[in-house]
């Protein structure tokens, strides 16, 4: 087993508890454009972290970099998940190592039914929730299991994307704007689910434009601006700090 | 200049200079030197360069802009050639009516075939165009022989009923194609020291037509119509919901590129009055696809470069035989000479296909944007050396 290096010299991370997911000095590029410019932060086991920032701040890019997708290229930096060096892995290896990403545009796979979309998630180990349990959580999906995934309504697709992530036994869940396009009732439902999986020990990073909602859910928050971290602290701090919110979140 | 912005004007000027000076540029080696094999400055090949350039430029208007990959464009080239030869047989040896007719007839065929094929997109469209072209080829080769003279190809004969002109000249031969008396076969040689340069009337006619065609294609690329075509490639759904109907635009692009192909076919017949069915075969359609991609699809000059490259290999590399190889390396000791010839032998002469195949692979692997990309890389190197320009990090859209 690989051993996680000690990043604690970094001033932003003065906590004592060992981090579960740590990102250290990550730099990412789309072709020649330099997007994520040296980002470091830690997420502790069982914690919900809100990653906030304006449009184009680089949130999605950060999540994609952590999930080891081909684009953007991470030119420098380390990513450790539970003592495993993600930065040395491909995205499918990262997924097997326990990382789950609900991507920004939901990425429902065309040509497959709802059920097939879920089955696909259960081909590679480790397998998480059973399909029945997922259908219990989102009855809508159960009703539509034979429908082609991409013809679902926007909100239903979002549910499918989340369900698909839960269908795998993951340790860290990365959510890119999970509430987008969901009716308020459903948002409530999902929030409940996230709390529930948190109780079971899931570690979550959530990117959300509805910052207030995200902060109410999260334990800690990181704020990005043009590819760099401008704040790293507890969610409560952000909610209290008027100036910070005004400057970077415009709320 | 001429309604073009600075960059396009420069490009046009460069192309004008290159085509006008081609007899010099393509004949860099003294006639008697061993390297004279690599000279390409003789009329037929120069004409082919520009004619296939026209063909590829036209193809690029369709493929490069709209992304519709036609696999049957050679049909229009063939139809253009047949029309032109018939014009020579029936009307006059002047190339103007012949070329006009070939453009018009090719346009009409393109309209019909395009109208039907454009009911489908993507690969389904490609196969429809392929099917039409293959049918034209097969019929021209066999059933339509009275019109096309089948396998042998349509040629002029000594008893063509030429309305404006004579069937045969006084000395009993077939008259020569001309532009108001300027014979296309006419050429004059200029010797400068050991070099020799040929200026061919036919080449300059083709070159002027090519420049016009090129200029027109720049204008189309930069026009709202061109923008619309790129939008079609990018997102048809959005275009629909923006109140535009992609069909007529695509069809227009198809017909324009068909007419370019017809023009190329007509010019080909004007330079060499023969039209053969194999000009319409899928391999010929494939060739223009390869030319365009090799040079850089969607760029202005790329297709011309691609056409030049393929024609160069076809005509120059195929002629290098062992005899020539031995004469090049004769300065080496015998053993080594034979060894070198042995190594090179599979790649030239009858092996020229192999070299071409390797070039295709190398270009597409290392220069994803085709030859134009190669040019840009070189240019960038230069620029970087000349002045450390910090802003040039972003790649410009290819020219």
């Amino acid at each position: 087993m690989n051993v996680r290096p000690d990043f604690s010299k970094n001033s932003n991370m003065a906590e004592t508890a060992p981090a579960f997911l740590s990102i250290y000095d990550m730099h990412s590029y789309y072709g020649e454009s330099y997007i994520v410019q040296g980002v470091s932060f830690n997420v502790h086991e069982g914690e919900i972290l809100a990653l906030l920032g304006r449009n184009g701040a680089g949130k999605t890019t950060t999540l994609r970099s952590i999930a080891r997708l081909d684009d953007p290229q991470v030119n420098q930096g380390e990513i450790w998940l539970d003592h495993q060096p993600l930065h040395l892995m491909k995205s499918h290896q990262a997924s097997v190592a326990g990382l789950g990403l609900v991507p920004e545009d939901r990425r429902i796979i065309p040509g497959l039914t709802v059920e097939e979309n879920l089955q696909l998630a259960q081909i590679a180990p480790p397998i998480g929730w059973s399909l029945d349990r997922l259908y219990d959580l989102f009855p809508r999906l159960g009703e539509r299991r034979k429908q082609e995934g991409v013809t679902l309504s926007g909100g239903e697709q979002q549910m499918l994307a989340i369900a698909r992530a839960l269908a795998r036994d993951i340790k860290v869940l990365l959510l890119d704007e999970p509430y987008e396009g969901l009716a308020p009732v459903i948002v409530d439902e999902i929030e409940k689910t996230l709390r529930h999986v948190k109780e079971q020990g899931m570690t979550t990073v959530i990117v959300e434009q509805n910052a207030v909602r995200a902060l109410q859910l999260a334990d800690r928050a990181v704020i990005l601006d043009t590819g760099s971290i401008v704040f790293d602290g507890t969610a409560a701090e952000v909610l209290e700090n008027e100036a910070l919110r005004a400057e970077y979140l415009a709320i | 200049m001429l309604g073009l912005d600075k960059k396009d004007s420069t490009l046009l000027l460069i192309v004008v200079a290159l085509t006008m000076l081609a007899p010099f540029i393509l004949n860099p080696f003294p006639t008697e030197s061993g390297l004279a094999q690599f000279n390409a400055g003789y009329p037929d090949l120069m004409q082919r360069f520009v004619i296939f350039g026209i063909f590829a430029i036209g193809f690029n208007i369709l493929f490069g802009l709209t992304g519709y990959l036609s696999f049957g464009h050679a049909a229009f080239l063939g139809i253009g050639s047949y029309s032109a030869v018939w014009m020579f047989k029936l009307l006059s040896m002047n190339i103007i009516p012949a070329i006009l007719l070939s453009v018009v007839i090719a346009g009409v065929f393109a309209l019909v075939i395009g109208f039907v094929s454009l009911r489908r997109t993507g690969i389904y469209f490609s196969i429809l165009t392929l099917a039409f072209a293959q049918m034209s080829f097969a019929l021209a080769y066999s059933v339509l022989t009275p019109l096309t003279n089948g396998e042998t190809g349509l040629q002029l004969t000594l008893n063509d009923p030429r309305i404006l002109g004579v069937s045969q000249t006084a000395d009993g031969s077939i008259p020569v194609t001309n532009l108001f008396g300027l014979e296309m076969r006419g050429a004059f040689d200029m010797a400068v020291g050991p070099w020799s340069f040929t200026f061919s009337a036919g080449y300059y006619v083709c070159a002027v037509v090519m420049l016009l065609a090129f200029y027109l294609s720049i204008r189309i690329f930069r026009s709202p119509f061109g923008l619309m075509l790129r939008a079609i490639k990018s997102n048809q759904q959005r275009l629909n919901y923006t109140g535009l109907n992609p069909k007529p635009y695509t069809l227009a692009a198809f017909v324009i590129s068909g007419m370019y192909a017809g023009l190329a076919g007509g010019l080909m017949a004007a330079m060499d009055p023969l039209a053969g069915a194999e000009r319409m075969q899928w391999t010929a359609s494939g060739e223009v696809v390869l030319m365009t991609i090799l040079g850089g699809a969607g760029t202005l000059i790329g297709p011309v470069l691609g056409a030049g490259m393929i024609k160069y290999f076809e005509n120059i590399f195929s002629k290098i035989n062992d005899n020539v190889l031995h004469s090049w390396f004769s300065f080496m000791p015998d053993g080594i000479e034979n060894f070198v010839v042995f190594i090179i032998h599979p790649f030239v002469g009858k092996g020229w296909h192999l070299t071409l195949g390797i070039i295709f692979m190398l270009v597409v692997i290392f220069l994803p944007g085709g030859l134009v990309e190669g040019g840009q890389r070189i240019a960038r190197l230069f620029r970087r050396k000349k002045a450390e320009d910090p802003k040039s990090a972003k790649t410009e859209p290819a020219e």
Partner: protein
Amino acid sequence: ASHTGFTNAPGNDKVTLGFNVPQTGAYADEGADELRAYELAVEHLNGGGDGGMLSTFSSQSLDGTGILGRKVEYVTGDTQTKSDAARASAKSMIEKDGAIMITGGSSSGVAVAVQGLCQEAGVIFMAGLTHSNDTTGKDKKANGFRHFFNGYMSAAALAPVLAKNYGNDRKAYHLTADYTWGWTQQESIAAATEALGWQTVNNVLTPLAATDFSSYIAPVLNSGADVLVLNHYGGNMVNSLTNAVQFGLREKMVENKQFEIVVPLYSRLMAKGAGANVKGIFGSTNWHWSLQDEGSKAFVKSFGTKYGFPPSQAAHTCYVQTLLYADAVQRGGSFNPCSVGEALEGFEFDGLGNGPTLYRAEDHQCFKDVLVVKGKENPTSEFDLLEIVEITPRAQVEYAPDHPMFAGGQLGSCNPGA
């Protein structure tokens, strides 16, 4: 003396010939063999090697000092067996390399196209392998000359042999490649066999692009025909013959007659491609290496010694054409195409295989003996595939210049170019 007043007049020390053969595509092997023959001819003309047919050729004007004292050089090109490519290649030889004569080709379409070009450009074209009647029929040209035989001659030579072996009461089923050569071939053979009492029950045109002929062969089985004539060449012929044998046609009996297959135009390379399927099958050929006349023996010897295998008929015709051209220049004393033409027209010669031969003035077609051959039952080597059944004398294959199958064209007048 320097010659001017015609295209590519050579200087005083060397002269360039253009060898235009298929180097890629289906006929590449045939083209390679032609090229070998050309290289051999050049070697002999320049006084190298054993001189080959120079010593057997009845006209003794060539002496191994090149042509008119000029060293012979050559350039090569690839016809790709496409008219366009062939013309491009020929043009490059004429325009760039200064070739004074173009020769080669291994299909009639290409030959006719290049012949037309040479006429316009003002150089001599010495056709290689081209078998269509049209080459010296409706598409004949003053600057073009053909040594090879043609469809009519094949038919005229073959028909009597067929009648002798298979009887006069036969029903023939023709499969014909659907393009000019196929048609003229079929027309010739049908006419010749019908004249001997055969009946042509059917003629089906097959696409050039066809590779599997099963759907054309199958109907033959129950058609009542007892002879199948395959008017195919090259790959088409190899495949159609292979398919015909597969369908058991060779073993078939129709009304107590053994079913027979005929391939009017044979070549050794094709026979090799068709393998064991050719055994016992009749056809005609322009020349074969097993001929025992002095010229043929000399040629086989020098070719075989140099390359290790016997020459094909394509190689033979190309070699002979080169010699004939050189000889005509020598005799006429000029490279001027008109002078060459004059020297060749009506020229009678011998010693180049095929017996006494005439280059007829009216259509520039050579008249000579034609070989009828049969696939050999027990070949002793990989080259020993065909055996000569009969050498049909020249008189029997001659026809009038205005024979309907050859009508329609005009030679025109010789064009010396600029």
